[in-house]
């Protein structure tokens, strides 16, 4: 699948582990639903509401459905990964995601209030990092994050963002122009 590339994504690439992480996270949820369904099924068999002859057949069908759902989730996550776009342009940060219902947020550097990096449990296990940045609006806090990068990329992104933001919000002139080096002999 074609990866939607930008300069920033080339420099600080998303990790392919992101696909695995997202798939695992969604699979856990699906697995819980699946297990609950199975337990209900077994209970209703033991109380005689469901004919136990059908039990193995129904279980088999459920397992097949489970695996196809996980496969679908995996393919969707690959697609999501491929269209994930982020770019630090000269004036703005652009983040666009969502293969079916795309949404794109554009934030000027001057408006960045906060840059932070975090990890959840799966991130810790897989060694991934989420780089969040937000302006003063609630929705930007929800939308504007680049998640699933590895440590070098996370550090690099954070450094570039902090550097650019501080350059932009410092007073318009740099305080001291660089000093001349002594003329070489």
């Amino acid at each position, binding site marked *: 699948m074609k990866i939607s590339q930008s300069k920033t994504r080339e420099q600080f690439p998303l990790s392919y582990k992101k696909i695995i992480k997202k798939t695992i996270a969604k699979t856990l949820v699906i697995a819980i639903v699946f297990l609950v369904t199975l337990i209900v099924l077994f209970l209703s068999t033991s109380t005689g509401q469901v004919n136990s002859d059908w039990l193995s057949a129904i279980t088999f069908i459920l397992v097949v459905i489970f695996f196809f759902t996980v496969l679908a989730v995996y393919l969707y996550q690959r697609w999501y990964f491929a269209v994930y776009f982020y770019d630090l*342009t*000269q*004036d*703005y940060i652009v983040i666009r995601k*969502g293969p*079916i*219902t*795309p*949404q*794109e*947020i*554009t*934030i*000027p550097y*001057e*408006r*960045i*209030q*906060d840059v932070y990096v975090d990890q959840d449990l799966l991130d810790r296990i897989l060694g991934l990092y989420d780089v969040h940045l937000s*302006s*003063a*609006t*609630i*929705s*930007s806090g*929800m*939308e*504007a994050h680049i998640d699933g990068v590895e440590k070098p990329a996370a550090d690099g992104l954070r450094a570039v963002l902090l550097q650019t*933001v501080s*350059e*932009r*919000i410092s007073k*318009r*002139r*740099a305080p*001291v*122009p*660089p*000093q*001349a*080096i002594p003329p070489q002999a």
Partner: protein
Amino acid sequence: MPNNEIADYIKSELAKGESRQEITNSLLEAGWKSDAVQDAFRAFPVPTPSANAPAPSAETPSHPSGKVITEKDYPVTKLWVFKEPIIIAVIIIGLAFFGYFSFYLILAIIIYLLVVPIMKANFHYSLDDKYLRVRQGFIAKKQRNLPYGVIQNVFVRQDLFDRVFGLASLNIENASQAGGGNKLPWWYGVNGSSGTSIFGQAASLGSSGNKIGIPGLKKQNAETLKNIILQKMKENPVEEFGL
């Protein structure tokens, strides 16, 4: 061989919009040799109008300065008026397959068909040199004037309906609470990330809370309008910055 220190300095100052003359002056004051400065400047060719900000100008039709852009230039499409009715109609047809029929859904279509065109007819936005102005309301009128400098972020969103019909909605947010507190709809943040439901959120028309929504634009128009607004944000910075 241009000096890296000068080059970095020039780059950062140019990015802040300083003029070449001023940068040269302050470098000379700091004791740099004139020819070294000239040499370093050679790495930063004077931007020609077409090379300046290629992304916006490539897509942005040149509006002569002073021209006010309104909803007549980039209209909310007529199709958007029929968005909810179409979605409800699909639901009705879907339910019909299962043998259900709801009179209330028909009623909802009728109400939407009455209300949405009135809302759309009373919704006006305009982008002049200094302000993004939005007028809206049929009975209760509201006018919103947003200086470009305070815009916090710009969204371009497409929900499922938009995607199918090639529409997009443009949302502009500042940090105010103009709607009287943060009235977040209940589905906001239910799934933690998107804040968008397939049917709601992206479609809001006009100003609500800290947001101005221009829904139902053609995708291309939404991109163009976004670039115009970004350009105006760049031209009208505010001096007091956050953080």
